[in-house]
């Protein structure tokens, strides 16, 4: 490793020596630094430079004029956000739907990956995998169209089947009652994304050393024992890392499109997320500053959540990403 030669000059003060090491190491790693430069530039340009636009949140921004020609309003936008009755409800909806989708998404994806892994015939396995991840490529407009058709009171398949099975007597207006909305969103998310999310776990599973399975077998472990004691621990790091990354997205992950397309006035109390709120009260009525204020709020909460998840992962003795 690096510092061998410099140590000989003992008269040099501490600081100079450190600078020397630092620079010489930089010079030695110049190819690596050069290689990472574009990525650093990219992140700087697209993740840090736009932050100066946060100024807008403290202005009454009028588009078409430069940011220096605007009127400053201090924390007016934030106080509008936090004093509005519906904002608390909107946060609740966002978090609830995010958590539901996150938990359901994880459990089903890991579950399906484990099941698929047990299928020995590659043909069938590939077939199931392909079918389950194809919906990922449909856009939400189409998926929500399918969902609302399936849930229709007027010949929708869900109501039809439930009626034929005599579980219900008359069709249920699924999309007209708020209490069903979160569940519908969660399940639609699962339907669309489960196959896709499985891919990464399947990949992780293939990297598990087969000798572990053999050892478990020698010890007399059956199928379920092997899943529980070999496969799951084997993909635990992947699960934790994905979880941390997703927690950071909780305020965004609640989504926009699905609620926007599936929601209607009657279920507004359950369907409106932060993004929809911002669209309605910020962008649609021309109050861009409100959108920025909400964006800042979301970013701050996301950073806090991300650190929390990271600390928890550390406590659990797992990998961390920060």
């Amino acid at each position, binding site marked *: 490793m690096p510092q061998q030669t410099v140590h000989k000059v003992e008269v040099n003060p501490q600081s100079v020596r450190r600078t020397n090491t630092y620079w010489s190491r930089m010079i030695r790693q110049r*190819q690596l630094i*050069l*290689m990472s*430069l*574009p990525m650093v530039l990219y992140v700087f340009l697209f993740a840090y430079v736009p932050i100066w636009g946060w100024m807008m949140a403290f202005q*009454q921004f*009028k*588009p*078409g*004029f430069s940011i220096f020609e605007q009127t400053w309003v201090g924390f007016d936008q934030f106080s509008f956000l936090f004093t509005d*009755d*519906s904002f608390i409800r909107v946060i609740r909806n966002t978090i609830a739907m995010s958590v539901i989708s996150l938990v359901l998404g994880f459990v089903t994806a890991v579950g399906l990956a484990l099941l698929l892994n047990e299928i020995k015939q590659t043909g069938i396995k590939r077939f199931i995998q392909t079918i389950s991840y194809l919906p990922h490529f449909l856009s939400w407009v189409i998926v929500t*169209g399918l969902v*609302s*058709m399936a849930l*229709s*009171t*007027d*010949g929708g398949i869900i109501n039809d089947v439930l009626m034929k099975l005599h579980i219900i007597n008359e069709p249920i*207006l699924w*999309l*007209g009652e708020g209490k069903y909305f979160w569940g519908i969103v969660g399940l639609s998310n699962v339907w669309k994304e489960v196959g896709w999310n499985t891919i990464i776990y399947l990949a992780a599973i293939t990297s598990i050393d087969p000798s572990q399975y053999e050892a478990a077998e020698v010890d007399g472990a059956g199928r379920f024992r092997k899943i529980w004691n070999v496969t799951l621990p084997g993909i635990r790091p992947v699960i934790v890392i994905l979880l941390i990354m997703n927690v950071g997205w909780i305020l965004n992950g609640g989504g926009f499109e699905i609620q926007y*397309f599936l929601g*209607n*006035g*009657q*279920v*507004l*109390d359950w369907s409106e997320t932060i993004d929809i709120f911002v669209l*309605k*009260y910020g*962008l*649609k*009525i*021309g*109050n*861009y*500053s*409100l959108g920025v204020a909400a964006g800042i709020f979301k970013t701050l909460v996301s950073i806090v959540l991300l650190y929390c998840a990271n600390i928890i992962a550390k406590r659990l003795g797992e990998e961390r990403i920060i």
Partner: protein
Amino acid sequence: MGVRIRKAVLVPLMLILALSLVVSACSENGNNSGNASSSSNEDKVEQFTITLFTESTGPIPTEDNRVYKEIEEKLGVTLKEEYLVGDLEQKLGVMIAGGDYPDLITADTKLTAAGAVIPLEDLIEEHAPNLKKHYGKVWNQLKDSADGHIYWLPNYGVYQGEFKPTDYQGPAFYIQKAVLKEYGYPEIKTLDDYFKLIEDYAAKYPEIDGQPTIGFSSLAFDWRDWGLRNAPQHLAGHPNDGGVLVDPDTNVATLYSATDVAKPYYNKLNDVNAKGLMDKEAFAQNYDQYLAKLSSGRVLGMFDQRWNFVQARDSLITQGKSERTYVGFPLVYEEGIQDYYLDRPVINLGNGVGITVDAEDPVRIIKFLDTLMSEEWQKRFAWGVEGEDYLVGDDGLYYRTPEMRKQQDDVTWKQANKAEALYGQLPKLEGNYPDGNADSAGNQPEEFFANLKDIDKEVMNAYGHKTWTDFFSSPPDNRVSYPAWNIDLIEGSEAKVANQKMKDLDFKYLPRAILSEPGEFDTVWSEYVEEMGKVNTEAYLDRLNEQLKWRVDSWSSN
């Protein structure tokens, strides 16, 4: 070592990458500024390119469209059009954020607020006699209430000659012609008459074409909110002012949602629902589902504006189910209230096009628009070419042969031979030309009658009417400040926030009230009224009243 070699390759590679990014960014700019000024002197007329973005989504003309070719040959103008894909507000937001506009742009309050368009009054005075003549009568109304400049050229609502509409496109309670026929074309005046017919018919025919009959439907989706919100003002005998009732004498606006003006209507719908006639999905469905439902021919009636469901009507006709198409009736709460559904044409303020700050030669653009306003070009757009698209009768009136009419219904043909999307957005002559012909075939009485189906003629005869507008009371002169719905509430203002909140509450509580058990209606209603009380409706009304007053002050002198 491998590292050495890689390094040697890597550095130049990265340089090339970085350079190429810079170069491509620059060259793109170069292209943009270059193409506008490309002109060749050999042409008789100097070629000129005008870029245009409108709110229109189509029909998108083909490359070799006849009309565009003529414009290019005769006027030397190449039109580069961009059609709307997706959300207009979003698209405009992006344009404003980038500060990059086409020469001609669709009217929107966002653009005026952003200073994206130039004042047109001097340009019109100096260079555009046709436009000046066209808008002369309504000149003051075109002016922006904030600074007195004219930014937009409205696309509809300025009539020449006598105003004689044959078709009705506005709001009404629509009912299937088959229902009317079944009961011998009875007079329908009130909600009770209307729902009685629907109830009887639905009881007699629980299924239509094998699917369950739907008594009454409506729509509350996105900006298409009138199906749910607007009916009470009409029932109470007021014209369409959007969310308010305006007293014609004092010119003061009041809200009607969550008041006793609105309550009887929703109470009635609650009854209708209890009888199983209300479409339970009405307010949870999207626009496509709504159209699909109407197109199946099993919805007996709805409250809507006709242009909103015209696609369903066309589909019904194509399926050969003309008797399942609809007639509109101007229902009122009780007999004695004069219906005011049909209004005199109002100028379509806040719509049409304007010239942006990015346009290099506004004078040429306004001259171009002025040329298109000439009778010759207006007829070219509306009627087509004589001998090909229409014939001239001995009396000088234009008419079409059945083949020509059929052609006009063919979407593909229209894409190659008409410029409907463009014509729809530009200023246009409406009413009658000086020679007595109507502005379009649809409004030429002879053409209108020739296009009626058998069932239509039967309905007309039974009620003793000649056109669809005859079903409505003939409207008085418009209030000077009419209509209130096109008042600019100002981006980001309190008034606009209040407006959005009121809409949210309507969307949430009205369906709930309609679909609740009859015993619970009053509870839901009072909760709704209470919630509405919390909204800053004053801000909304203040803005409207201020503008209504401003209109009376500055428009009366016209």
